[in-house]
Structures are given as structure tokens and as C-alpha cells.
């Protein structure tokens, strides 16, 4: 039982990282109709900015996290402003290729600035643990879960209740009708990119503070957030968060039990399980669990 709960806890922490990245995917997809493959690059950029603030500049970790998220948000909005705005109205295929290109541009920029070696981010969590009822809980994991919960709640309050969140939802549904109400589509696009980048940066920093440390390949985690987004439905923020948690849980549980259950399949079954789930879900429900089935009454 303890072992099970231990795996569940590890899965929640991992799932939170996926949830943040998947939410970023969904925010940009809803606003602009494009899947942003550069999300992993933004995550890495945010993590390295966090390293610079907390380790190189020796700022308090909380300050470093906030600054890194803000800086990533500015970078995200800048990418939208400089590159993607020129692509408004172009075929989605071309825009998606550009985001893939961006991913490959961001990585060399990062290695040019910060180098290839594995870096340790100064953080107050280290490898501390607390023991609750026999469960050994990593402090970093607890903070990852707490910060993700705060970011997700904050996002939903903004998205559901603020005037600008309303404008974003209106634009997502019918861009032209939203324009006709005087909503600035450009501002909606830029804010969407900023939000996605800030969420990715938060995921990146909490990840970099973990056992893996910080290396240029940290952005690959965004690929595993892909199944999370598909699982939830590409246009559902709630689905993205749930999908992230589910994928994290399944991955952690598979890792925990693969020696007993899938010994025949080798050591790294847990790595491919998210993608297996994604394929399965797409076969059964192509629009994801909470995605729009595209029925409209007109």
C-alpha cells in the first residue's frame, strides 16, 4: 500500500509538470489555432533564466522563479510579435513548421549562452523529504504540486472571470465576431503566448531543481506533455490539466510496477506508455476526453 501511494505521489508531481506544459499548448491552440512545438524551448529557456537569477545572480529562489516566469512571458510575447504575427491568416501547416523551426533555434541559443554541461540550480528544496504516515515525500515534489495548483487556479480565475479572459474565449470561438466587438486579436495572441511561456517556465524551473538538474535536453519533457494535451482534448484547458495528471500517474505507476508486470517488455516501458495511451485515445475519441466534438447549433 505504501509503495502504491509512493508511486501515486511521484506520478502527481510528474503529472503537474506535464499539466503546466499541456495547459500552455492548449492556451496557444485555442487562441491561434496552432500547436506550438516550441513549447519545450520556452520551458528550457525559463529553466535557464531561473538558473541565472537564482544561482548566477544569487537571488532569493522565490524571486528568481517569479522573474524567470515574467522574463519567459516577455520572450513568448516577443516571439509571437516578431515571428508569428506575420503568419496570421497563413495555413496552419506553415505556422506549425515555423514553431518547429523555433524549437531548433532556441536550443543552440541556450547552449551558446549557458553551455552544454549539466548545471545545478541553487534552490531551498534540495533533496529534503518529509515523512507522513510512512510515506517519504520530496519537498521539491510537494512544492511542484503546490505551485502548479496555484498557477492552474490563477489561470482559471483569469480565463473564466476576467474581462480579458472572456475576450480570449470569444476570440477562440469566433475570431472575426470577436474583432467586430472591438477585441484586439493581436493582444489576445500575444497574451496567450506570454501565459504559455510563463507556465512552461514554471514547469522548467521546478523540474531543473529536481534530481535531473538542468541540461539543454530538458525541453524534451514537453514531448511527453503532448499525450497529455491529446488525452484531454486540444481545446480544453481543464482537459489539459487532467490529462497531464493522468499521464504522470500512469507513467509513474508503470515505472513502479514494470518489473512485476511487464518484465518481458524491458526496462523503459514507462517512457512509451504515455504515447500508447495517446494512440489509444485518438482511436476511440479523436477529439480527446473533454475536447470539442464540433457540433454547433446555428
Amino acid at each position, binding site marked *: 500500500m505504501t509503495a502504491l501511494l509512493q508511486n501515486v505521489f511521484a506520478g502527481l508531481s510528474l503529472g503537474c509538470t506535464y499539466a503546466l506544459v499541456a495547459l500552455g499548448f492548449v492556451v496557444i491552440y485555442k487562441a491561434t489555432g496552432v500547436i506550438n512545438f516550441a513549447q519545450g524551448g520556452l520551458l528550457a529557456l525559463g529553466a535557464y533564466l531561473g538558473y541565472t537569477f537564482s544561482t548566477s545572480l544569487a537571488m532569493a529562489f522565490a524571486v528568481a522563479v517569479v522573474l524567470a516566469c515574467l522574463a519567459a512571458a516577455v520572450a513568448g510575447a516577443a516571439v509571437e510579435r516578431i515571428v508569428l504575427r506575420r503568419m496570421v*491568416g497563413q495555413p496552419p501547416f506553415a505556422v506549425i513548421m515555423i514553431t518547429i523551426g523555433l524549437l531548433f533555434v532556441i536550443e543552440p541559443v541556450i547552449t551558446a549562452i549557458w553551455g552544454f554541461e549539466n548545471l545545478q540550480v541553487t534552490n531551498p528544496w534540495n533533496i529534503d523529504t518529509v515523512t507522513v504516515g510512512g510515506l517519504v515525500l520530496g519537498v521539491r515534489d510537494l512544492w511542484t504540486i503546490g505551485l502548479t495548483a496555484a498557477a492552474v487556479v490563477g489561470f482559471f480565475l483569469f480565463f473564466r472571470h476576467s*474581462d480579458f479572459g*472572456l*475576450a480570449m*474565449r*470569444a476570440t477562440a*470561438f*469566433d*475570431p*472575426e*465576431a*470577436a*474583432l*467586430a*466587438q*472591438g*477585441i*484586439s486579436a493581436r493582444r489576445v495572441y500575444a497574451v496567450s503566448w506570454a501565459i504559455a511561456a510563463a507556465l512552461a517556465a514554471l514547469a522548467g524551473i521546478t523540474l531543473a531543481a529536481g534530481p535531473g538538474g538542468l541540461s539543454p535536453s530538458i525541453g524534451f519533457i514537453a514531448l511527453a506533455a503532448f499525450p497529455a494535451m491529446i488525452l484531454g482534448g486540444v481545446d480544453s484547458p481543464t482537459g489539459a490539466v487532467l490529462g497531464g495528471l493522468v499521464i504522470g500517474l500512469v507513467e509513474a505507476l508503470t515505472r513502479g510496477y514494470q518489473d512485476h508486470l511487464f518484465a518481458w517488455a524491458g526496462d523503459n516501458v514507462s517512457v512509451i506508455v504515455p504515447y500508447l495511451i495517446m494512440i489509444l485515445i485518438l482511436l476511440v475519441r479523436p477529439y480527446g476526453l473533454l475536447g470539442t466534438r464540433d457540433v*454547433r*447549433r*446555428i
Partner: protein
Amino acid sequence: MADPILAVANLEVVYDDVVLVLRGLSLTVPEGAVVALLGANGAGKTTLLRAVTGLLGPHRGRITKGSVAVAGVDVTGADPADVVRRGVAQVMEGRRVFAELTVEENLRVGAHTRRARALVKESLERVFDLFPVLAARRGSVAGYLSGGEQQMLAIGRALMAAPRLLLLDEPSLGLAPRLVAQVRDIIAEINAQGTSVLLVEQNAVMALSIADHGYVLEVGSVVRDGPAADLLADADIREFYLGAPADGERRSFAEVKSYRRKKRWSA
């Protein structure tokens, strides 16, 4: 004389750099008036509205000549948000309500450009007064409203911008006759409360029955205009838009068609 609320002068609009849709169109909406714009499909009615509200961009359209002025201020090629702030709100063809948002959220989106919360609340009350059905269903998702209710919502949403000029693109399209009469009464009511109206319609009788002035559009330019009463009495207009000859005698469809062809105003 004061500047008209809308003055379109010699407007030319081209789509995709090649398709000339408006060919030197001029039209005026005096302050406080209801002006009807009539014309068949493809005459350029919707394009004119897009040119006024700055929505040509998403359709790859461009103003190549002429000007649009709102209350004396030039807004040719302006941003849609600027046009809304100048007091022009539009009810688009096909209603275009945000089906995933609730009725109240749709109305809030309509007030996006306004900052004074007290005044927005006042507008909301006014819309609910005008459309009690929207008040009753304020929490419902707009996609589940009936077609008529969605049209009311689309009009209510436009009113939330507190417009001085309301542009309506075929508000009667697809509605039952009883609802058409209701929409007509509401437009008259909105106008009586001080908002000028430019009403684009194929339902000429409905439009001319509340308009002060009417324009007839054909392949991108105005071919006739005059006081609404004159147009309504005009035998040619009756022929074109009512499909009924002035003498009330029924003809075969083929005959009507060929007759219509002969009597187009412009070649």
C-alpha cells in the same frame, strides 16, 4: 448641417487584389435615421459593412479608393476596435453569437471597449428590458438558444457597445414571419431611443417599412435611392423584391425570370 453619422464616399473595395466588389459606392446615414440597403446576393452589401467596420482584412479585402467617415471623422481602413470606440456596432450576418459562452458573457463581450462599469451595467439592464427572454436565460449557454433568441442576443450584444450607429446585416434571415415582425419592432424601438440604423436586408418590405431612406445596390454600386415610401411604392422595386407584378396577376416562374433579366437597372 451637422455631419452625418455615416458618410461613405466613392468607395472601392477589392478582394484578393483582383476582385472588384464595390465600384465607387456612396451612401449617407443622417444622425437619428434608419437607412435601408437593399440588394441581391453578391451585390456587395456585406462588403460595405466590412469596409465600414474594418473587417475586410480577414477576408483579404482592401479599400482601394474612397473614404468612410463616422460623425465627420475619417475611419477609412481603421482598426475594428477604433471603429467600435467611435460608436459603430455591427450585428453580423448569421448572428455569430459566441455559442460556448453564456448569454450574459456574450453581452459582456459586446461591452469590451468600454471601461465605465456603471454605464455597462446600465446598458445591460437596458438590453434585458428590451429582450426579456435574454434576462430569463442570462445563465444559459448561447448555443442552446433558438435561432430567434440568438438573433436577439446578437442585437443585444451590439447594443452593449452603446453605439451611435447600429449596422444590421440581414437580421430577418431564416426567421419565422412572426419573429421578423418582432425584430422589426425592436429596430424601430432602438431607433426611437436615439440610435441611428443602417439596415441591410433582402426582405425589402420589412426594411422599407421602418426606414426613412433606402438605397438599392447592384453589382457594387448604388443604382437607386430615395425616400423609403417612394421605393416601397415603386413598381420596379416591388417586381424585384416581392416577385409580384404590380397588377397582382400570377405568372409562370420562367416568365418572371426572363422578365427580371430584361429589367435589370445596370448592364
